[in-house]
């Protein structure tokens, strides 16, 4: 059994997942399933970004959807109004994500906890209002249509669902790889120290502001790239994309998967996406099911699916440790089992 | 009056109290000596119900109160005057005192009487009764804290380091007040680092180190004990 658990957390498992993802379009017959999966991957990339600032670093950023929209609008405006090809515009989306992330981060990260959360909620709303009102730049509430799709290479046509799926999958795999590198580096440990407490981090000699801003900028770059890909597949963008409801969606994905875990963002995004598709039959009543589900989830599985799984393994190992001295030998790939300690210890 | 049997308390996996057994008899003034971090405040908070014990039994007058809520303990007559005072800083002194009598709020006459007694004990508070508690000096705030605790008409008053951070002259006043309260019939459990002053007014004392009780005895025994003198009196 323990070997099975280790296996689930091993890098072999991740290669297996990647292999599954690669064969997925070949075995499912419906293009719709591939399309939903591709869009879920796009969101997952943005959720990986949110995981950096919110999961690892502990700062609830409620403007994340706004940065997603900034990326999407960068691609839309550059390709439609300035005739750029997709790829340079896509690169610029990342640059805009970084620049705006830096500006907002420097101002907002001086604030703590709820102040930060509500401040960023307002920033997100300002982004939405600016997109909605600044017609000369963004076409206002009319939105931007006929955005250029990613140009293909040779025979590959990214306006087709399956090639686009592989394109997004490649970006997603890269995003996960980067997250893993960060998480296992000194930087990742720095972020986690900040999450546990600012004071602890400072006592370890960590430059709070610089590291928080860095985490924030990394997260906004993820969001902006995801937004750029989104623009490339949906090929229409309107101000609604910056609406805070999308940020809430991403929080739900992250929560279901597990804050501050490596595979949580992917697991959460996929589960919620497919669950949403599955309960589509309920139409307008699905929130009556989904709302309480969210509440039950935070009460009974506060660490999300991956997090719960990890602490389950943690307990098993702890129980075993006195008997066999193998506490140090674990899957070794999930350095975040300590996440429960970030919890508020006093109400 | 108060009896602890084998009480443990934990912060996550860290054991802050380990098998504490002790008792305080009616009318006594018992001192709990211990260095910073020895477990005095944890012990107090466990008795007050702010923390739940991980093991053991706590009883008041023979009744089991283990794991009860703070409000139930206050109603049972166990009132803590906490370290750091924990006043309501933007409220007036008078409101702080009134809230001290929260559990007796339906007994208006009794509350009025206790208030007069407290104000008589601390005349300076009468003068400053409309000022926000947070604006008072440290010694005066300590008086508010003690007065607030007394408003609960405790059977057992637990004082957690009342002398902390006060000028020597004020410390003397505080201990004199504590003695006086005890003389008027309230049982007192006093946690202190200032062992000499505390022992002078105490009946008995316990010593706590690393979450365990390591020594106990009456006033003379403790004052005469070499280890206690070395560790806590510094003479």
């Amino acid at each position, binding site marked *: 059994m323990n070997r099975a658990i280790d296996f689930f957390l091993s890098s072999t498992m991740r290669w297996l997942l990647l292999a599954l993802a690669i064969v997925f379009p070949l075995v499912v017959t419906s293009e719709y399933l591939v399309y939903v999966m591709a869009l879920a991957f796009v969101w997952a990339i943005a959720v990986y970004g949110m995981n950096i600032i919110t999961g690892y670093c502990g700062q609830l950023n409620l403007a994340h959807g706004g940065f997603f929209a900034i990326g999407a609008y960068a691609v839309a405006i550059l390709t439609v109004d300035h005739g750029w090809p997709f790829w340079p515009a896509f690169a610029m989306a990342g640059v805009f994500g970084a620049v705006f992330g830096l500006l907002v981060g420097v101002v907002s990260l001086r604030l703590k906890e709820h102040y930060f959360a509500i401040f960023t909620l307002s920033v997100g709303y300002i982004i939405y209002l600016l997109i909605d009102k600044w017609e000369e730049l963004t076409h206002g509430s009319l939105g931007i249509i006929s955005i250029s799709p990613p140009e293909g290479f040779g025979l590959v046509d990214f306006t087709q669902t399956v090639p686009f799926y592989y394109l997004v999958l490649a970006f997603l795999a890269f995003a996960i790889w980067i997250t893993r590198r960060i998480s296992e580096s000194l930087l990742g440990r720095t972020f986690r120290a900040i999450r546990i407490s600012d004071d602890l981090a400072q006592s370890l000699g960590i430059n709070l502001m610089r590291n928080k801003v860095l985490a924030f900028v990394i997260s906004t770059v993820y969001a902006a790239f995801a937004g750029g890909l989104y623009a490339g597949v949906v090929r229409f963008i309107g101000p609604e994309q910056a609406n805070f409801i999308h940020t809430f969606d991403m929080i739900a994905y992250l929560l279901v998967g597990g804050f501050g875990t490596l595979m949580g963002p992917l697991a959460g995004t996929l589960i919620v996406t497919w669950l949403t598709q599955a309960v589509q039959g309920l139409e*307008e009543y699905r*929130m009556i099911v989904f709302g309480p589900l969210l509440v039950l989830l935070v009460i009974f599985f506060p660490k999300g699916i991956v997090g719960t799984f990890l602490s389950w393994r943690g307990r098993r190992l702890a129980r075993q440790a006195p008997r066999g001295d193998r506490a140090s030998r674990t899957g070794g790939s999930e350095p975040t089992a300590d996440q429960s300690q970030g919890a508020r210890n006093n109400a | 009056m108060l009896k602890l049997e084998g009480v443990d308390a934990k912060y996550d996996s860290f054991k802050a109290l380990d098998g504490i057994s002790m008792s305080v008899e009616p009318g006594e003034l018992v001192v709990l000596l211990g260095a910073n971090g020895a477990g005095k405040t944890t012990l107090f908070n466990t008795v007050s119900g702010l923390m739940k014990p991980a093991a053991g039994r706590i009883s008041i007058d023979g009744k089991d109160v283990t794991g009860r809520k703070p409000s139930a303990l206050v109603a049972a007559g166990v009132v803590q005057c906490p370290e750091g005072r924990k006043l*309501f800083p933007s409220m007036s002194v008078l409101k702080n005192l009134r809230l001290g009598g929260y559990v007796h709020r339906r007994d208006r006459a009794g509350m009025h009487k206790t208030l007069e007694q407290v104000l008589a004990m601390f005349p300076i508070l009468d003068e400053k009764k409309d000022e926000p508690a947070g604006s008072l000096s440290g010694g005066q705030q300590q008086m508010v804290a003690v007065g607030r605790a007394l408003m609960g008409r405790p059977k057992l008053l637990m004082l957690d380091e009342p002398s902390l951070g006060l000028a020597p002259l004020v410390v003397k006043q505080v201990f004199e007040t504590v003695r006086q309260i005890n003389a008027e019939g309230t049982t007192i459990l006093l946690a202190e680092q200032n062992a000499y002053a505390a022992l002078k007014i105490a009946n008995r004392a316990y010593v706590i180190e690393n979450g365990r009780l390591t020594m106990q005895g009456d006033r003379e025994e403790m004052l005469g004990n070499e280890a206690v003198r070395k560790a806590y009196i510094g003479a």
Partner: protein
Amino acid sequence: MELFIQQILNGLTLGSIYGLVALGLTLVYGILHVPNFAHGALYMVGAYVCYFAMVELGLNYWVAMVAAAAVVALLSVLCERLVFHPLRHAPPIHDKIAAIGILLFLEAVVQMHWGADFRRIPTPYNEILRLGELTLPVQRLLIIGGAFALMGALHLYLKKTMTGLTIIAMAQNREGAFLVGIDANRVAMMTFAIAGALAAIAASLFAPINLVYPAMGHLVLLKAFVIIILGGMGSIPGAIIGGLIIGFAEALGGFYISSTYKDVIAFVLLVVILSIKPTGLFTKGVR
């Protein structure tokens, strides 16, 4: 000049509604340190209960308002018991997400029953007073008067009664409150009840000059958050003054600057003020 005074009156109308909603939000925050994202949904439910009592049951306006306050107070307490209480030891992010869950649920339930139609609460006070060029609809005066009367009553309750004092005590020092024997659950439930009632009354006062629909709470909630951050989270006078600031800023800014950007004003104000003073205009703590 009349136009200016007219805008001041508009600002007062808006500000007193925002203030009432923000008051409930700030009280709950002061006690539990939960930014209750479901508060806007309570406001919305309040309007629907008032609509139901008045239009479907044919009750008197004031009776309907009291009914709305009672129902929403109960609902608010239920949220505390069923959701926030079990989460009191969870990380702060979880409270916020659970609150969002409640918001989605309440909106869906209301929409299931009443649909998404715009609905109207007819006011019995349709008269319009005119002072020279000034237009003073009675319902608007009622909003201002009602809101300030309610704020006054709340002030007296919090300052002069023992139960009111326990709320402030809990906000100022939680452990201190426990040690004088205040029951945390009682205070939490009472605070949620008051917050719910305030939101419902605000909605019942405001709905007759506005429309009732499931999404009506969104923007009001966002602005209430801006207000309590401006005023210092947990501060009661901060919520009232913050409400008026936003109300005036919108009315005057909307009139003299641009009403296209009217809704941006509140948020830009917030960003500017927090950039200069990260703890808000007023210091933290209920006074």
